[in-house]
């Protein structure tokens, strides 16, 4: 049932709606392989082309060039209604004139299934999505979260080869979003449907993905597991978009070490000795101590955020760093102006290429 998805050199240019003759380059030379049963998120800031990429896969937008394959089959010239790729829309796109049940069986009815089979499949999916008791309601008698479930149920009841989500949770409040996220991931794993999931929320992407595709103004910046893109961002953009980071400049000492203002740190690089490299230093991978450490620093700002204390410290010659220290409730907060020492954790250092 599950199908792989291949995207080769996919391009999309729109005629610019503002300046005649000009073009908006929405997706640039995208390449992506999704293995059967995998959940891949497309993550990026607003306007970076996530929706456009997803809509090309669904068949609602025509690629300017490049290929889309499901398994072996090239889909470019297959009409959207024959692609077998069910989509969950950001606005839910529930049929307002049909009941919840009729919404869910809409696609099945088109397949001319027998009534018994139709009902069996619908009932199963309604139960899974917790909608059984409201099957006969009209969509506008549902809450946002329930409507979201109808949209989801309507897609998975089709047992599609590919599931496509376009920011399915962006209209829900934070609490419901967390809960639905878990539900979607559970369901997807149980059914093993290959899924592409668009979001601009990095936490959402980290928590549900097998792999994340980070996009920036039409380009794919990096493809990797949540751990990879967090620990080894391919670019400063990725590092900043996924979490916070400090970017001190170091000098390559040998293939395995760099020199950061006289302190040798174990970071593998591909550059030549003496080259400058930019390090990615996550705030939580910096230890602060009152007595000893790699760099003497001054606390400039201290903020209590509940689970962590967020400090802005200044190190002479290296500028300001952001540092997160867990469990401040117990440890207490440092005061601005206080002199301390900061040490990057050796195991989680990463240098940007180029």
């Amino acid at each position, binding site marked *: 049932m599950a199908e792989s998805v291949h995207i080769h050199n996919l391009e999309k240019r729109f005629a610019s709606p503002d300046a005649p003759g000009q073009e908006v380059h929405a997706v640039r030379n995208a390449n992506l392989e999704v293995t059967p049963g995998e959940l891949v998120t497309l993550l990026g800031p607003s306007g970076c082309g996530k929706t456009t990429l997803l809509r090309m896969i669904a068949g*609602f937008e025509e690629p300017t060039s490049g290929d889309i394959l499901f398994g072996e089959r090239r889909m470019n010239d*297959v*009409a959207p209604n*024959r692609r077998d790729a069910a989509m969950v829309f950001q606005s839910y796109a529930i049929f307002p004139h*049909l*009941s919840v049940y009729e919404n869910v069986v809409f696609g099945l009815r*088109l*397949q001319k299934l027998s009534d018994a089979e139709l009902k069996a499949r619908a009932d199963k999916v309604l139960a899974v999505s917790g909608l059984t008791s409201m099957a006969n309601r009209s969509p506008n008698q549902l809450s946002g979260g329930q409507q979201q479930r109808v949209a989801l149920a309507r897609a998975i009841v*089709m047992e599609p080869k590919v599931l496509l989500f376009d920011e399915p949770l962006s209209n829900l409040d934070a609490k419901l979003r967390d809960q639905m996220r878990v539900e979607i991931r559970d369901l997807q794993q149980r059914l093993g449907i290959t899924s592409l999931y668009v979001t601009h929320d990095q936490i959402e992407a980290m928590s549900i993905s097998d792999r994340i595709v980070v996009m920036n103004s039409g380009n794919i910046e990096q493809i990797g597991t949540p751990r990879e893109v967090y620990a080894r961002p391919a670019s400063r953009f990725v590092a900043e978009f996924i979490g916070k980071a400090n970017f001190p400049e170091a000098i390559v000492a040998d293939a395995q070490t760099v020199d950061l203002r006289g302190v040798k740190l174990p970071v593998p690089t591909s550059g030549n000795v003496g080259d400058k490299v930019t390090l990615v230093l996550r705030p939580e991978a910096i230890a602060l101590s009152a007595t000893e450490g790699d760099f003497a620093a001054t606390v400039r700002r201290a903020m209590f955020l509940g689970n962590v204390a967020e400090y802005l410290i200044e190190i002479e010659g290296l500028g300001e760093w952001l540092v997160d220290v867990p469990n401040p409730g117990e440890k207490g907060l440092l005061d601005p102006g206080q002199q301390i020492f900061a040490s990057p954790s050796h195991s989680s250092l990463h240098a940007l290429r180029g």
Partner: protein
Amino acid sequence: MLTTARSQLRILARDPILLALVAVIFAAILIFVVYPLMMVFIASFQERGEWTGANYALMSERRLYRNALWNSLSVGALVGLIGVVIGYLAAFVLTRLDVPGKRVLHYLMIVPIISPPFVSAVSILFLFGFNGLITRQLLGLQDFSIYGFHGVVWSQVFTFAPIAYLSLRGVLASISPTLEDAALNIGASRWQVFWKVTFPLSLPGVASAFLIVFIESMADFGNPLVLAGAAFPMLAPQAYLEITGSFNLARGAMLSVILLIPSITAFAIQRYWIARRQYVTVTGKPTASTSKIVSTRVKWLLYALVLLFAALVLMFYGVIFVGAFTQVWGFNYTPTLDHFAYVFDVGFKTVTDTLIIAIITTPISGLLGMLIAFLVVRRVFPGKRALEFGSILSYAVPGTVVGIGYVLAFNGPPFILTGTLLILVLCFVFRYVPVGIQSGTAILRQIDPSIEEAAQNLGASALTTFRKVTLPLIAPAFFSALVYAFVRAMTAISAAIFLVSANWNLMTVQILNQVGSGRLGVAAAYSVVVIAIVLFAIVVINAIVTRMTRHMNMVKF
């Protein structure tokens, strides 16, 4: 350019039925809208098969034609003006003021829209004709003649002011009274607020309403034919008389072209110039707050004027109703059923003919309108703008021109349709489809396209999507398109009068004939039957559309 057209076609061809449909609609519009118009142009430049400008030279040579043009233009302008004043007043009172009986008054205001356009002409004859109730019986006037300029103007104002009212109602309802409140708040007087805020904001709407009424007046055929009289020639009836009276097709065609020019010009201005300057959308939600810019005295004065117009409507229809049951108006007021007996006996075939034609026309026109709206808003294909323009064009073309065009186009090969049911149905479908297209596109533009994409995504073809999702969603537009098509098919005259035959005749044509032969009672009886059928049909169509879209009333967008 060509490559985009080709790739658009390729995408469309993924749904072969859709591609075929677009092709068929294109062809149909070419054949039934563009081709007849072309034939009128060609005929107007020909004389016995030779090319010539002689027909147009007649415009300057013959007083009759010059007068016809001048009369039509001046009546159109005056009716437009009076119509807009009445329409604005009524719209202002019924949307902005806190007065009793607004609903009833609203319905009374729009009754003239759903009756044959020259019912008022018949009423006027009953009241002000040679044996008129008011002129002869009450005032004892012997030599008063209602025929001519004032008769036509009166009758048309009554017929078309409601159209101005409807369009201005939308405009006024969408101007937020908070703007007026704001102006009052910074110290403007009421009079200043009206002239400096409310009126300027509604000005594009006023201009638009004026042009619409002007177009309707220019195109009107029934009222002038009944009330203009021989001394007051007008373009539309004159073109008709050239063809049916003197069998001179070329001159009829030439007059049609002359008639077409101001209509198309007004339409172009209305659609491409004023529509862009509309500050407010006509579909805006009516606001609840009422206006404070008129004093109580003025308020009741305006209200009285609206009541007066409503009373006139009641009187005109009352007169028709009574007239239908009266032996001989002006001489013998004994109640009788004779006129109805005539309608349901000698004239009954006309009733069934009309009904058959209307019943065939209505669903085709309604569905076609929604389908074209769907294609225009939701699909891309080469020639889309042309398609939209072509399908809306017929709205601006006076019926007389269309009628003559159909006579010229479908009297010989390759399409011989004269005298058939088909020619009437086709004429009505393509004449009345623009209103459906316009209301359909307006609603569709407000509906999230992903609802239809979802249907496609679940496996529905374009046509299935249209049938199961789009159509129910635009049910209100569908309803108004159906009602409009039915009402117009029941009440049309200007184009139809060229196309009726012994086999297929229409009630409106009968009404006109009866008026012509002085049998006003029978004409009134026919009118009553038409109105009754239309009212009944509205109820039925409403029931059907509601059933089709059960959940719709609960939907919020």
